């Protein structure tokens, strides 16, 4: 779907603040509210805008520890990816699962209440995941930038 500068401006504004109302968006994009509404509807219908999600602040809710686990799989097993991902989905503390082309095969983002809780999750639910050849952990210290905006 071809996008013009006005579409991109609307997306930039919404990215910065998804709670913005249509009249406010229209104002900033210098179009009428009706035009803005129509454009947004088209962006949703074509799937450019997938939706809006609330962001949970896990730290504020008592999950103080975040660890990025970089997993290398035993690639002699053809089902290694599928089996690991299916098992990781069953661990509630796993909040993100990514697969890669590179040195790392899978990344699991794991949250825990404290280091003792992390140790429990790691021993009982991570080390028992299937077909892991190696795991490296990066312990989160601070978030410098987290908006994950697209440079539209």
């Amino acid at each position, binding site marked *: 779907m071809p996008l013009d500068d006005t579409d991109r401006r609307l997306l930039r504004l919404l990215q910065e603040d998804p709670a913005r109302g249509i009249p406010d968006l229209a104002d900033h994009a210098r179009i009428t509210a009706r035009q803005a509404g129509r454009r947004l509807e088209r962006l949703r219908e074509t799937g450019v805008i997938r939706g809006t999600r609330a962001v*949970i602040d896990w730290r504020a809710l008592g999950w103080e520890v975040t660890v990025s686990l970089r997993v290398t799989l035993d690639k002699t097993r053809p089902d290694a990816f599928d089996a690991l991902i299916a098992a990781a989905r069953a661990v509630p503390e796993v909040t*993100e699962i990514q697969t890669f082309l590179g040195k790392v095969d899978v990344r699991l983002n794991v949250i825990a209440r404290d280091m003792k809780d992390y140790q429990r999750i790691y021993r009982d639910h991570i080390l028992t995941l299937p077909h892991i050849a190696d795991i490296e952990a990066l312990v989160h210290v601070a978030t410098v930038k987290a908006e994950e905006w697209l440079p539209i």
Partner: protein
Amino acid sequence: MIELDDIDRALIRALAEDAGRPAGELGRSVGLSQPAAWRRIRRLFASGALSGRRLELDAEKLGFGVTVFLGVKLATKGRMSMEDFERVLGAIPEVQRVEHVLGLYDYRLRVVARDLADFERVLRRRIMALPGIGSIEANVMLSEERRPGPI
């Protein structure tokens, strides 16, 4: 730490899935009236349990075909201050996420680009050009899944 009851948790789960649903509809799903649900939702954002809203865009449809995760290690010599380093990194539009971590790397980055050639441009001209960069490891993302988490 913010204390939550079962209704709060149900609302958080629903809002993390789709924050665009009207309060009336969300309220019905947890057995609350529209005004009661609206008050609860407002409190979840005001208390900081929910830190904000994120617009979910289809990156590929917008021409961003490549997402790369980088592990960056700082050099021991010739580095700029960490504050300067973080500020300059964070100002690169293609760098979506910067986390200071402990372990094999000092920083974990999420970078988006139009294609691999575009990624190479960002990596060489913007990131590797920074003074104090030691080593970089890049992994090209193939798939991503966000899970609801333990709530």
